[in-house]
């Protein structure tokens, strides 16, 4: 996730990473990692604290004064932290409108990555 400061709004964090800030901590699917008292969904979250708790790398480009917060390593140590599919919202090239993966709930889905290159 690209950041221009070391705080992040919970809604933006959840939309990009799938991690939601809840009373019990940072949660993804059935997994919740406790966060320090005072962390809540109603205010900006300290990114360095989150990175430490979840084992996320934080990489900086000094010249452009931006950060990238990478995915968690501290829960399962695998590419998937949970088998609950994350929400995915991306533009559909047929319509140029946003498409939500969750709109297909109730059907089986084969999600396939390809590329032009």
């Amino acid at each position, binding site marked *: *996730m*690209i950041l221009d400061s070391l705080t992040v709004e919970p809604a933006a964090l959840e939309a*990009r990473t*799938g991690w939601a800030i809840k009373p019990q901590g940072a949660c993804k699917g059935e997994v919740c990692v406790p966060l320090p008292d005072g962390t809540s969904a109603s205010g900006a979250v300290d990114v360095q604290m989150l990175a430490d708790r979840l*084992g*996320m*790398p*934080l*990489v900086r*480009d000094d*010249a*452009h004064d*931006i950060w*990238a*917060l*990478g*995915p*968690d*390593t501290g829960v*399962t*140590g*695998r*590419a*998937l*932290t*949970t*088998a*609950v*599919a*994350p929400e*995915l919202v*991306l*533009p*559909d*090239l*047929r319509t140029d409108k946003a*498409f939500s*993966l*969750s709109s*297909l*709930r*109730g*059907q*089986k*889905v*084969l*999600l*396939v*990555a*390809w*590329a*032009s*290159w």
Partner: protein
Amino acid sequence: MWQDLRAEVKPKGLEIVTVALDVNVEDARPFVKAANAEHPSLIDQAHVTDELFGFINVPNGVWIDEAGMIVRPAEAAFPGRSPISEQFDAIDLSTLPENLRDLLGEVKKIETDPEGYKVAIMDWVEHGADSKFALSPDEVIARSDPRTMDVATAAAEFELAQHLQRAGEPDAAIPHFKEAHRLQPDNWTYKRQAWHLVAPGSQEANEVYDSCWIADVKAIGAENYYPPFVP
């Protein structure tokens, strides 16, 4: 490529969603248009699905059930055997120029099982959670690739790279692409994307990247390019 399979499985309750891992939208759009795709055909410029689902190569797929649970993690995915593969198998390499012969010689060594993958999909379509190919949540997580701090840092480096590339600063993106390649050398989407941005269509080394598809594939052995399908 996926449209024919989609026509077969959609009436039975399986939707196909394709995601193009392309920093440049216009690189992917003509393919979607030409395919006349009826299924959602998404564009993922930042390769967020690499991070969210564990894609490391193309084509890679994940299976998601009716309740939104992943029942197979990222793996090589094929829509069955296609006429293109028949045509490709029929090419006589000895008739080709040397550089093309070398490249296609490696491509021919890549091992895939498109028929087996399609059999698995059709079994899941028919039997759902009772299919032997549908895995439990614990198996799904355990079978997803290991994510070390190096792998996670590669994702962050790639994200900086694509962000700078799309912001019109390709020179600033290159060191971050290179760092992503160093940290996760088996992520072909990071490599092939970056190579394509400086030398579209080329699979050979250039003045920016000393790594390239043909050399890197030879180094790992083309037969290891896609891990085998494990039922």
